[in-house]
């Protein structure tokens, strides 16, 4: 079977655009997920029982159901109650819903990994709860969970392929369109694989580097 290089070349502009969309959806979703996760981590750290339960229910529901179905509900079901959100926004919301839950878990683990004695020594110099959170717990939790956070960023970025289902023209959407139109299955899959390697491999290598650095003492030079 011959590999149609010319065809591949002709599709590159479209794929370039698709990469842009993937990065855009991914970056926004990662940012909002992080925001949600930070709020959740703060809520969990504040130990208000009702809020804790709410956060936990959210995390469990989001983590234990497929993104595709979450997405369908937001995109196809919400309009029946009068809320119509664009495909792009739906994608970001659904990914934030899922990503927020995963990152909350990561931060929670990070907060729990901060030694109790660190918190006590913060208290001992008179820091308030809020100051403790900002100056002692979150920076350390953040650094402790950096590798896990990063791994989840990559995971989220990969999950963007799911949002092709609501007509967001990212990499998989473009791949599928071309396959369906021209049946250049292998060419298109190869392009997709190559793009993924280009996108994710550097991130993954960075992750490995971060992990190694954190092992040799987290902080400083």
């Amino acid at each position, binding site marked *: 079977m011959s590999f149609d290089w010319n065809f591949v070349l002709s599709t590159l502009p479209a794929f370039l655009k698709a990469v842009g969309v993937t990065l855009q959806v991914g970056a926004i979703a990662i940012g909002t997920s992080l925001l949600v996760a930070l709020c959740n981590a703060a809520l969990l750290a504040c130990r208000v029982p009702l809020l804790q339960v709410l956060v936990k229910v959210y995390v469990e*529901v989001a983590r234990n159901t497929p993104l*595709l179905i979450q997405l369908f509900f937001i995109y196809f079901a919400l309009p029946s109650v009068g809320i119509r959100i664009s495909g792009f926004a739906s994608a970001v919301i659904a990914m934030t819903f899922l990503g927020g839950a995963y990152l909350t878990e990561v931060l929670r683990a990070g907060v729990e990994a901060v030694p109790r004695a660190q918190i006590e020594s913060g208290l001992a110099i008179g820091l308030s709860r809020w100051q403790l959170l900002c100056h002692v717990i979150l920076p350390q939790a953040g650094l402790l969970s950096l590798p896990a956070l990063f791994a989840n960023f990559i995971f989220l970025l990969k999950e963007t392929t799911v949002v092709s289902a609501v007509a967001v023209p990212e990499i998989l959407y473009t791949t599928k369109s071309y396959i369906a139109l021209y049946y250049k299955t292998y060419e298109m899959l190869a392009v997709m694989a190559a793009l993924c390697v280009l996108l994710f*491999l550097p991130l993954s290598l960075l992750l490995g580097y971060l992990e190694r650095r954190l092992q040799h003492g987290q902080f400083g030079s």
Partner: protein
Amino acid sequence: MASSGLELLWVSAPQLAKGAWETLSISAASIFFASLGGVLYGVLRNLAGLWSKRWLDLTLRIYLEAFRAIPVLVWLYLLFFGLPIFLGVSVPSFWCAVLVLSLWGASEVGEVVRGGLQSLPRGQREAGLAIGLSTPQLYAEVLLPQALKRIMPPTINVYTRIIKTSSLAVLIGVVEVIKVGQQIIERTYESLLIYGFLFVFFFLLCYPLSAASRVLERRWSHA
């Protein structure tokens, strides 16, 4: 709609059950092999570091990165359609799905195992060596049982992701539960009902797992 919806679910129950069974069996098999492969990967990676075997470390790293960077969907196509064309080996679709999910899962579980082993105090391995244990004995008797505590919770999260990802197998002709749902939707247009069912189905499948992981995590962190 409520009664007709329930009726539809009732009528479609055998179909959905078959799809659910397919999802379950792919997931179970993949989880099994991913666990085995993950432990093997983790131990080899750990040893490669200790013995400064760069080539082994590099090989494993490439395997990991390949499955991290290239989506499962592409691997499914590659192995299912590519193997017969390029190597003349044909793997039935069910087993091809299991193969890909296992390889992918093994890379994820493997990283967890590696991290778990690495987080053990170095003294434990030395204490084991100091009483003359061989390397396999060391891992089987001393290191893996201890690392299990740290490995189990994140591994279970990988398991739930394997379950959720198993639906991609539809691309190579495996009719799992989401596909069955779509078949029903295309005939009846009852998408809310069916997706609601799928939502609950996956939640019921995955939640006990992640709840178990949490319980284990809590129990073991106090022990």
